[in-house]
């Protein structure tokens, strides 16, 4: 009895939207960044599952995943850099409080 593909997709989707909800809901910028990572992970899972199920050659799916890793890492680094430099300006990490771009 094997696990059907749909199950993996379900997990991936649920995780993805949980992360999405987190981005929209949490105030703390760092937490938002964490939720973004969750979303990326969910995407990775979906990719791997599809590539293992459907791909005649599944290297391409895996290559894509590798690149997602790379980009996720870069993004976290830069994102944290932004948060820290903003924090230096005003010691606020609350997303709702940063609205100088209003209007």
């Amino acid at each position, binding site marked *: 009895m094997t696990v059907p593909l749909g199950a993996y997709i379900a997990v991936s989707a649920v995780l993805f939207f949980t992360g999405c909800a987190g981005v929209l809901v949490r105030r703390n910028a760092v937490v938002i960044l964490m939720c973004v990572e969750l979303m990326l992970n969910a995407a990775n899972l979906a990719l791997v599952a599809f590539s293992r199920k459907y791909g005649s050659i599944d290297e391409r799916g895996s290559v894509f995943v590798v690149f997602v890793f790379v980009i996720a890492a870069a993004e976290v680094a830069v994102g944290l850099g932004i948060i820290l430099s903003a924090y230096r300006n005003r010691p606020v990490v609350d997303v709702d409080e*940063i609205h100088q771009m209003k209007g």
Partner: protein
Amino acid sequence: MISLVWLIPAFPLAAFLVNGLFGRRRLGHMTGLIATGAVGVSALLSIGVFLEVVGGKTQTVVSLYRWIAVGDFSVNVSALIDPLSSVMLLVVTVVSFLIFVYSNGYMAHDAGFYRFFTWLSLFVFAMLILVMADNYLLMFVGWEGVGLCSYLLIGFWFERPEPYYAAKKAFVMNRIGDWGYTIGIITIFLVFGSMNFLDVFKRLEESAPAQATLTLICIALFFGATGKSAQLPLYSWLPDAMEGPTPVSALIHAATMVTSGVYLVARSMPLFEVAGPSLQVVGVVGAITAIFAATIALVQFDIKRVMAYSTVSQLGYMFLALGVGAPVAAIFHLATHAFFKALLFLGSGSVIHGLGGEQDMRKMGGLRRKMPVTFWTMLIAGGALAALPPLAGFWSKDEILGAAFANGHLVLYAVGILTAVLTAFYVTRALWMTFYGEPRDHHLYDHAHESPRVMTLPLIALAAGSAVLGIVIGFPPEQGFIHSFLAPVVEAGGVAEHVPELATIVALAIVSILAGVIGIAVGFSMYVRHRPDPAALTRATGPVYRILVNKYYVDELYDHRFVEAARAVAGASWAFDIHIIDGLANRLGWALAMGGQGLRRVQTGIVGNYALTIVAGLLLMLVAYGGYAAGILGR
């Protein structure tokens, strides 16, 4: 000479251009000489043309150039020289010349001297175009031109408000009449395919268009004539036009422009004769206007106003003549009236000039001792106006009344006789108040002086014309020179005017003379012997008198009815413009601004909101995809 006929308007035009362009710098009085000289040359040429027409060239068309040629519609600038137009040319140029001479003296101290002669020259040019034109459209050019010059000259002293208002009123009323004229000529073109007089009359004979259309044309043209010739209902501009300088009143509003309506109807007689009741309308309107204006003239105190209403009344006589089928009589009266009315006006001007600007007769009196030449010439003119034989006015007016009687229009005849009585009365009154009796204002009287020779010589010339013109061209009645001269042109075979027998003629003449004498006698009695006393009579007839003095309140009526209505429409349009059109534009702008303001609120500056928007977009795409897949949206 006839081939040179286009030189006749060319000289006044040249004078206009020269005076207009250079008049201000050339020191004053050269402009007067230039203008007078130009008109003088025109007068000489007109005499030459007239003699040639008398000699036998009864219908010549002298073309200048092809003006409009569009498809079926072609109009040329060409002149029709026939007895009617040559008579008009003569009258216009000769009387104009005399008035020009006079103006050199009258306007000598006026700062706008050059401007006066500029406009006056332009006027003569336009009037000549009107008279010489061989088609309705070219005539309209002249028609409009004289209207324009009338406006310019009435409002000559524009530093005061009254002349400006009077000029505006004159122009607007003329314009209203012009609307009728335009409808008339457009319909003529639609029906006859041409605006040329000769073409129209020829086609009228060949194919008879519908009565209704012809009546429409004639009534429309006549409406235009009422505007130009100050008949009811468009007459009230003429008394106000007295705000202009007296030579203007004499030339434009007595001798020439106001007669162009009469000329129009006379020229279009072939149309009027076959167009049902149009001639009746002309006659009735003329008669009513005649007596109406005469009643108002009875009680006016401004000497020029009396003359203005008298002009309206006499023009009414001319239209009456046209209406009863005596167009020759109408033109005859036009010619004699030009002389004696111009004289009356110029004489009034001489009086006003001598009194330093006073126009109110109640302040005059006894001036015959101080201004003899003026007095005697005015007396002759007054007699002509009152139709006393052997002066010119008698022959022409008597012929009109005779024609009315002989053709069976007894009511109109009675009206004419009554008006003659009134005319004689008011002219006596005017002359008496001005020249006889004790001076009512001694200060004015002491400073009164006779006018210089440049002004009195034209008076004498006009007086000579008023005296003998009637006999020279109109005797014997119905068979004089002018009848045989003009009859072929204006009586186009339709109306067979039967020459009444001698007894009738004499009887009618006696009645006319009697009417005049009665009028003079009553005037004499009232003003010399004060029986009845004018002041007492005024009090006794209280309300009637007031109605007359206030000119039947016609101006107030027009103001209330038409001017207020026009103002209301203008106000409504303005409100529409401000509130609806501008409002639309403003509201649009406001709406856009508000829209912008509203849309602005999307930019909260909070990043989370933007992320939410992304998810919302995703939702939208999902819905769209779902709809597409389910077949609801698109195929």
